[in-house]
């Protein structure tokens, strides 16, 4: 299980691959991997977005993410979990968040990764401030609910 906060862009594919290779005890044991990647878009709520600054509460972020991963591990038979999250200045098309869950069976991988993402969205202390093409800045006020409304 690994949780990392990145102040610089990360390559999601290299990260997952490296983690999967480094976790030798996983080899041959996992049958299912569910990965979610959230990426910065160049538009939001009808406006062109130039960039974003992601603020976080160092320490609490890691503590809450560890709790969330522990909750998921109690509810589903999870073999391993990787959670990466960006902070700082982010440009469109850069990955913001990565959640990868390894399990034996696919239902558990889907359920656990979705649980972690929803919990992260509602409880991990991150805040996004968008810089619009118009040069205006705005704090995002609320994460929509991915479970109920099917939106992010």
């Amino acid at each position: 299980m690994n949780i990392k906060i990145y102040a610089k862009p990360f390559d999601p594919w290299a990260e997952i691959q490296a983690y999967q290779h480094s976790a030798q005890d996983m080899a041959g044991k996992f049958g299912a991997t569910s990965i979610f990647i959230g990426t910065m878009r160049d538009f939001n709520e009808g406006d062109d977005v130039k960039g974003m600054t992601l603020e976080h509460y160092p320490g609490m972020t890691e503590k809450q993410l560890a709790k969330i991963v522990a909750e998921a591990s109690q509810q589903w038979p999870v073999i391993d979990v990787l959670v990466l999250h960006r902070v700082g200045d982010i440009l469109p098309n850069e990955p913001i968040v990565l959640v990868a869950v390894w399990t034996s069976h696919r239902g558990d991988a889907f359920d656990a990764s979705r649980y972690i993402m929803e919990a992260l969205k509602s409880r991990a202390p991150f805040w996004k401030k968008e810089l619009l093409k118009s040069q205006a800045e705005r704090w995002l006020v609320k994460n929509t609910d991915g479970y109920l409304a099917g939106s992010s």
Partner: protein
Amino acid sequence: MSIKVRYFASLKENIGRSEDNLEFFGLATVADVWRAANPDKVLPDNTLAAVNMDYVELNGVVNDGDEVAFFPPVTGG
């Protein structure tokens, strides 16, 4: 007792400070901490509070050395 108070994101910008260090005598709740630090400002609706990096209710009691944080709803992910 000594309480460290931290503010984040839009709340930090609105208040114009990122932290306060307060001294209390006797029992204090999270709401008391806010009132002591911001006597002229009502706690904005939907503000979240944490003590020592765990979420708490506003009537939660604080202890010497605690770090109390106030911040708007989170928008990560």
